């Protein structure tokens, strides 16, 4: 089990740091009545904004309805999702709305989302908490006018160490002082990232450089994933590869397809890749980015202990790539020359005419003179026709 889940705070008192801010949050809940301004929690990622909202909702007996920026992207969405909640409170018990990553609503893509959200915030009939990493954009300035702001600050490194040492003690394990400091500094105040990296280090996987998983590039990430000693370690690595999802799927695909693995393993892996691809396609089509959380869970099925799969940028084997790279360039130059003689485009020549030319040349029915290098290529292509 991931330590970040195992040691996720269950009570307000389990959280660490930002005591003043937490106190303000509790006071807000205690004094809340219809018309009270909603709350905006601003702070860096991994500091515990979502956890804080979850815990306080539970402590004060609210049923938290959690949304993120993609749910409130446009006016229609907001009206469809939020208005029933605001209008049917008795049916829904004691609802509370939590909107995560509101700073993610930006540019032209919001289609009136911010304005519709602001209208709801102005006349909140139930507790509403918003969370954002950053509050300096113009849209956030508009939102800030309608809410009470609580700033969550990054934790000082010593407090991070205090928290990490508590976890290590409960796990009955230790990390060298040097590595401990490295983990804390690399986390930049992000508790979740620090705990993930610590778990990865303790379970036997030492990052290949002094960098944390957060900064592993795609090649290091995929190699570390397949070299992992356990599925837990692979999960930590996978979840820490913060790259574009499409790039992640493509990297796994090209690595699998170009590796020397058995047909059954290839079949199984491609099945998983296609599931991930379908999910990502659905996300793009519906813009329902909440589904993204399931992508890594699907990709984790690719893990197999002692797998020989290693990262490859290209989805073709080296000999084929080599042929495309070198012979392709020469065929292109031949096509360029001959297409002019046929008064057609180079691509038309290469696609439709070139195979016939090769047959004619093979049957000696066409006498075309090429220089030595081109003749060699033509001969190679003729051999491939057989």
């Amino acid at each position, binding site marked *: 089990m991931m330590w970040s889940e195992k040691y996720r705070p269950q009570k307000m008192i389990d959280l660490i740091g930002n005591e003043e801010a937490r106190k303000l949050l509790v006071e807000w809940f205690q004094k809340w009545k219809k018309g009270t301004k909603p709350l905006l929690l601003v702070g860096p990622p991994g500091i515990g904004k979502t956890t804080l909202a979850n815990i306080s909702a539970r402590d004060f007996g609210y049923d938290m309805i959690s949304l993120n920026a993609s749910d409130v992207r446009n006016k229609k969405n907001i009206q469809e999702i939020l208005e029933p909640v605001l209008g049917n409170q008795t049916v829904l018990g004691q609802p509370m709305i939590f909107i995560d990553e509101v700073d993610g609503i930006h540019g032209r893509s919001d289609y009136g989302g911010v304005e519709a959200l602001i209208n709801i915030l102005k006349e909140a009939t139930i507790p509403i908490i918003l969370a954002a990493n950053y509050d300096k954009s113009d849209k956030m300035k508009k939102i800030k006018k309608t809410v009470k702001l609580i700033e969550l600050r990054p934790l*000082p490194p010593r407090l991070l160490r205090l928290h990490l040492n508590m976890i290590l003690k409960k796990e009955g394990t230790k990390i060298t002082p040097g590595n401990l400091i490295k983990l804390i500094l690399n986390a930049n105040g992000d508790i979740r990232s620090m705990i993930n990296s610590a778990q990865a280090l303790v379970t036997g996987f030492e990052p290949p450089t002094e960098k944390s998983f957060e900064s592993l590039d795609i090649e290091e990430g995929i190699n570390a994933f397949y070299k992992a000693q356990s599925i837990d370690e692979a999960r930590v690595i996978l979840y820490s590869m913060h790259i574009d999802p499409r790039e992640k799927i493509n990297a796994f695909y090209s690595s699998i397809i170009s590796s020397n693995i058995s047909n059954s393993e290839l079949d199984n892996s491609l099945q998983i890749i296609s599931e991930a691809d379908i999910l990502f396609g659905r996300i793009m089509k519906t813009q329902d980015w909440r589904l993204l959380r399931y992508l890594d869970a699907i990709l984790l099925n690719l893990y197999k202990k002692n797998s020989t799969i290693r990262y490859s940028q290209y989805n073709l084997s080296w000999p084929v790539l080599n042929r495309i790279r070198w012979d392709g360039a020469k065929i292109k130059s031949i096509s360029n020359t001959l297409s002019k003689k046929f008064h057609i485009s180079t691509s038309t020549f290469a696609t439709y005419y070139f195979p016939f030319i090769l047959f004619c040349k093979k049957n000696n029915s066409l006498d075309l003179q090429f220089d030595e290098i081109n003749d060699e290529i033509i001969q190679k292509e003729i051999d491939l026709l057989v």
Partner: protein
Amino acid sequence: MKFDGTCIICNEKITVNEIGLWAKGLGVKHEKCAESNELKCMICNNSAGCSECEFHDDCDRSIVSQLCICKNCESNNEPFELYQKSVINKFALLNINSK
């Protein structure tokens, strides 16, 4: 101060006519808060000893959460439990579940 404000260091109110240091885009802080560049220890309430802290160069004290832990308290047998007890003492509101 021309208007009321909230100190970005201690989160307490700064009232009209009090002296506060204001910077555009940053906010306002008490004169006293601006002077102290030291974090406080949550447990013993003394200075956290930032000048001798091993993280001195990597800890931006103007932006981090202002209550930390000093070396002495951290070297205790159960520092995390001590820290939690101190939070309960100083911020009784946060001990919601036990009420």
